[in-house]
């Protein structure tokens, strides 16, 4: 737990590992020692096909992505906006199963040397059996999970299993999150904190402004973990803005949008355009 008596961490500080740092957190801290802003991308497994998912991951890793969220498709992705929603639906329509997602994820963690997280909704874990799900994550080398509809209050079984496995359960800070609530979330999280840069679902525009800088500053003050910023990051400009204010920039819907509009092969140049020094 963060030592509350310390002077406030400033965005400029390179984050320090917390006592019980998970492998994911450690990776991020190590990487941050080399790079001032990491890049995390997001794909929906099985969209448009599992083969394509594999190709996109390969391209992304080659383009220099530092870590990735793999979304296991769910039929009711209530926190996702139109782009990811559609990707979920299409993947399921094409027959994607949870088992196939595990299988692909296992291959990816074996093949690529970056951390992968699962992002999915709680029902996927629940129907699989939460402990079984976490065990499977361990087995196939997944380092963390983001389950947007599972607040800590409902997630005791999940949190226990994740902590026991030294995996990272990632929670989300939003512009509505109060200070005490941030503390609760922080206490229940590992790996990093995912801050969403605005209200709303994934895939909508965010104004990258002083407000946002202030908000990130507040987030920083309430967690001992690295900070990822998501929801609406989609250009080189956005990324530059975040440099020095967060540890990880998350590009989610925009990659899928590129994939959808310009095809699988356009993903790599897009990511490169974001990361090029």
């Amino acid at each position, binding site marked *: 737990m963060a030592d509350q008596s310390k002077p406030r961490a400033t965005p400029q500080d390179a984050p320090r590992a917390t006592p019980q740092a998970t492998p994911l957190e450690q990776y991020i801290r190590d990487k941050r020692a080399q790079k001032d802003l990491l890049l995390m991308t997001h794909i929906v497994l099985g969209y448009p096909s599992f083969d394509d998912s594999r190709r996109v991951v390969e391209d992304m890793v080659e383009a220099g992505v530092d870590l990735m969220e793999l979304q296991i498709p*769910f*039929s*009711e*992705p*209530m*926190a996702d*906006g*139109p782009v990811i*929603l*559609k990707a979920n*639906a299409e993947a*399921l329509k094409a027959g994607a*199963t*949870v088992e196939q997602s595990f299988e692909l994820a296992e291959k990816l963690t074996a093949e690529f040397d970056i951390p992968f997280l699962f992002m999915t*909704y*709680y*029902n*996927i874990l*629940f*129907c*699989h059996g939460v402990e079984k799900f976490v065990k499977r994550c361990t087995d196939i080398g997944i380092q963390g999970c983001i389950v*947007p*509809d*599972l*607040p800590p*209050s*409902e997630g*005791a079984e999940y949190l226990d299993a994740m902590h026991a496995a030294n995996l990272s359960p990632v*929670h*989300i*800070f*939003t*512009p*509505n*999150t*109060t200070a005490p*609530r941030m503390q609760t*979330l922080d206490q229940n999280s590992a790996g990093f904190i995912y801050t*969403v840069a605005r*209200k*709303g*679902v994934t895939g*909508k525009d965010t104004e990258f402004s002083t407000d946002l800088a202030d908000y990130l500053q507040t987030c920083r003050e309430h967690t001992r973990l690295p900070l990822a910023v998501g929801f609406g990051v989609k250009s080189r400009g956005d990324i530059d803005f975040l440099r020095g204010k967060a540890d990880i920039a998350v590009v989610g819907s925009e990659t899928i949008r590129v994939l959808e509009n310009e095809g699988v092969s356009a993903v790599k140049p897009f990511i490169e355009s974001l990361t090029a020094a």
Partner: protein
Amino acid sequence: MKNQGYYSQFGGAYIPEILASTFDELETAYIEARDDPAFWQEYLDLMSTYSCRATPITRLDNLSEQLGGASIYVKREDLNHTGAHKVNNVMGQGLLTKRMGKTRVIAETGAGQHGVATATMAAKFGFDCTIYMGAHDVARQRPNVFWMEQMGATVVAVTEGSQTLKDAINEAFRDWVTNMDDTHYALGTACGPHPFPEMVSWFQSIIGTEARQQMLDRTGVLPHRVYACVGGGSNAMGLFSGFMDDKEVELVGVEAGGRGRGSGEHAARLAYDDATIGVAQGYKTYFLQDRDGQMQDTHSVSAGLDYVGVSPILSHLHETKRVRFEAATDDDVVAAMQRTVRCEGLIPALESSHAFAQAYLEAPQMSPEENILINMSGRADKDIFTVADAIADPKWRDFIIQKAAAYQMENLNG
């Protein structure tokens, strides 16, 4: 946010973090309102002046005799303003919205009944209003869309997923996570994250409280069985709550049997064996889902019962066996509706007709000294397109074809 709102293992609040404080605020407002007798009084006043509460109990004289068993009584929620029990919940949430100082309401709707009720409430309270409705339902239920728009509501056709009720709920949540500051989501049934199941049931309990007293006044005894259809479960919870502590009253919930047991085309979560426990749309209950937890397509002749989940409180009452669950098939439902129309001059909504169908099946086996009570949750006259299709009325088709031809002619002529 606390871990609460559970009914044995069912319920909870599985919500995106961004709504955490919104739910805290809602729960606080709800608890304060519930603990404030003035609030319930204000609610009763509103319902007795804006709608026609207490709604009456009607005895089905002809059918009681024809069926030759129990005396059949009907709780007339169809007489409510906007034609269904939905308005009870909506008006309550309207008062709560005002209390919370919010200025905009959103809602999902399947058949359109809850959408019309919400748009009505918004017009009455002066709120902005957006209604999410599956694109399929928008196409099927244009009359309701028409009235919502006339009330000033924006109706958004949801083109995601199966384009029906559950997708409309997801979409409403998507709106809410963006606009929670000024917006209240007036969920339409006793489902969703805590405190919705409890809160909606509370507002709907006005049905059961009235009905219990009315049956006593009318017959001197409690009814032996009470029947309610079960979509999300709000009208059932409303009626049942009046009799929950009367152990001698059997409570019967009737789900949409669609094309029947084993057909895979139904929406019976508790009466059939196809549903399993899951978590979606913010709460834990029985869902019609596959082994991975993906929600499955459901089917019912009545849009209002055509839903994958069910109130967590009802799942609990199912497990404790306090409520018996049955399912009525589309065919039986249409027949029960037609029979009620012809023999009694009442026009139960297709949803409500599920309860009638089951009651008609059981009443003849009961003694004439026994009484049963059916919840007529709504009237069908707004669903004429659906009903006319369900009974395949050729004159209706001709009428629509002629009407269309006239419109096309006018379009041509400028």
